[in-house]
């Protein structure tokens, strides 16, 4: 029994699962939240799904030792591109979606190329593209439409796929999020590409020497994260029938907090997709679930701050547990000398 508990604790996501349980327990015991109402509520699930689709590639990048904050500008870039192309110019929605994803791919490519070609840290590279893209989106929107907000009417099939409310409350993006998490979890933990990511985050030079195409992997990751961000933008535009140039900036810190709470090591080389998934849920429950308690909404950021700290401390001790773990010798086997 103890062994089973310990083997769970050694996993990267152990801290995030405990944080989640802690928060729910706290809300139920001290906030007087109704557990059933909290679990059944759509608000935090919708919030988590939008955040989660961005948090997963941000987490993968962090595992590989990079950071992408340009996502903050790419979410509005995605929704504005779709709205301008399909709403303002009346082109088919497929063109709007393809255009938005193309914008994402280009920015991701630029992020990746700048990161591998220069010695500038990816935090600075993506900070630059973040600010630059904000400018591009605002200027392009005003220049083309004369407005900072554009309406969009999507056909039924697009609504069904990207902007539907399941049961009148749950956004369809939740399905996309779960699918994306499942696929990425498989890629990270079951395929060789996942192993390459961990190696890159552990020691990039050794990884390259071992024959891993680190440059191509880095570019692919940046493109993936930019695509995910524009995808979230597309879904929002289709759901709300309009797009604004502002918004998205919150996603940067929210995604990073979710990822770190999920047990990903900020300096790379350690983490799991399940952890990121649970970390995102935890974050969403703290910031949205607080409405189901008697706790004043204004306290939620305090809780998030404290939780982040606790989660990181927990993750650290669990990581040590994993590092210095040695399986107990099976009984009956002669003990080998320490110094053969």
């Amino acid at each position, binding site marked *: 029994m103890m062994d089973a508990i310990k083997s769970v604790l050694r996993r990267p996501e152990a801290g995030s699962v405990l944080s989640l349980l802690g928060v729910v327990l706290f809300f139920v015991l001290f906030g007087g939240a109704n557990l059933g109402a909290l679990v059944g509520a759509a608000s935090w699930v919708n919030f988590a799904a939008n955040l989660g689709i961005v948090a997963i590639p941000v987490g993968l990048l962090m595992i590989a030792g990079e950071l992408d904050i340009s996502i903050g500008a790419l979410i509005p870039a995605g929704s504005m591109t779709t709205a301008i192309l399909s709403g303002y110019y009346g082109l088919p929605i497929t063109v709007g979606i393809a255009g938005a994803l193309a914008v994402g791919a280009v920015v991701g490519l630029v992020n990746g190329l700048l990161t591998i070609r220069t010695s500038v840290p990816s935090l600075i590279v993506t900070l630059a593209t973040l600010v630059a893209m904000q400018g591009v989106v605002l200027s392009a929107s005003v220049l083309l439409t004369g407005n900072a907000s554009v309406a969009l009417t999507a056909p039924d099939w697009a609504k069904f796929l990207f902007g539907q409310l399941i049961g009148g409350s749950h956004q369809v993006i939740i399905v996309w999020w779960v699918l994306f998490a499942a696929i990425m979890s498989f890629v990270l933990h079951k395929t060789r590409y*996942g192993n390459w990511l961990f190696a890159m985050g552990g020691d990039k030079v*050794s990884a390259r020497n*071992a*024959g891993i195409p680190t440059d191509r992997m880095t570019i692919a990751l940046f493109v993936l994260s930019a695509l995910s961000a524009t995808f979230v933008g597309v879904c929002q535009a289709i759901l709300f029938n309009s797009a604004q140039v502002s918004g998205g900036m919150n996603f940067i810190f929210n995604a990073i907090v979710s990822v770190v709470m999920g047990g990903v090591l900020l300096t790379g*080389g350690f983490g799991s997709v399940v952890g990121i998934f649970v970390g995102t849920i935890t974050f969403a429950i703290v910031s949205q679930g607080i409405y189901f308690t008697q706790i004043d909404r204004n306290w939620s950021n305090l809780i998030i701050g404290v939780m982040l700290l606790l989660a990181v401390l927990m993750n650290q001790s669990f990581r040590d547990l994993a590092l210095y773990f040695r399986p107990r010798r099976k009984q009956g086997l002669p003990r080998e000398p320490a110094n053969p």
Partner: protein
Amino acid sequence: MNDKPAILELRNVNKSFGPIDVLHDISLRVRVGEVLCLLGDNGAGKSTLIKTLAGVHKPTSGQILMDDEPVTFTGPSDAQGRGIATVHQFGGTFPLMSIGRSFFVGVEPTKGWGPFKIYDRKRANEIAVKAVRDFGITRIDDGDRLVGGLSGGERQSLAIARAVYFGARVLILDEPTAALGVKQASHVLRIVNEAKKRGLAVIFITHQVMHAMAVGDHFAVLIRGAIAADFRRGEKSREEITDLMAGGETMADLEAQVEGYLETHEGHPPSLQVLEGPTAH
């Protein structure tokens, strides 16, 4: 001893970076089943020499021969492909990865087909654990353990076992014992001997003369980019080697000088200026 075939040979190799000459006229032979100890103080050109051997740098002039055939390495991976493996001081491994995963980084065994090809954890762990146990490190028995939890000596051993498993013929060990305690260092030295027994050529870089003498068959002392001495096991004593490495100043001279000073100066130690005076150079 001398008739063993040479795997890797340098002939009159020079290397300069722009106007700075780093290696002068280096000629060395590394033979099958032999340990060549490369000794030298910091800045003597050891790193440049091993990087040249590992294909990172190209010699400015001179020849590299493998199996008596002249070769030009296009890069580190080319040298690796020909069986030259470098193991760095800290093992070059990934602390937060499992033994099995880090052993097979870049060449992961997979099972399944198409997009569902998955990493074969069980097989990777089995092979990695067996490879390192074959080298006598029996304390490693679970491939799921993280590399960072191993001792420094075990990590070196894992890196060496990995290089051997992937077909290394020449093993370049860059200061493998520098950061280790006495017991851990002896682990690594034992593994160096084991590699030698298996017919590998080992280039062992160190400035710890004791470690070099424990495993070396052949010694080369590097001073300011040139080979100052090239001798075989038993031809020189430890003191002679230490003196050579210190650049020709004999330790005994230095000691005598310090003692003489102490006697004439009522037990006060000499300042650095006095020691570096005309007699020392």
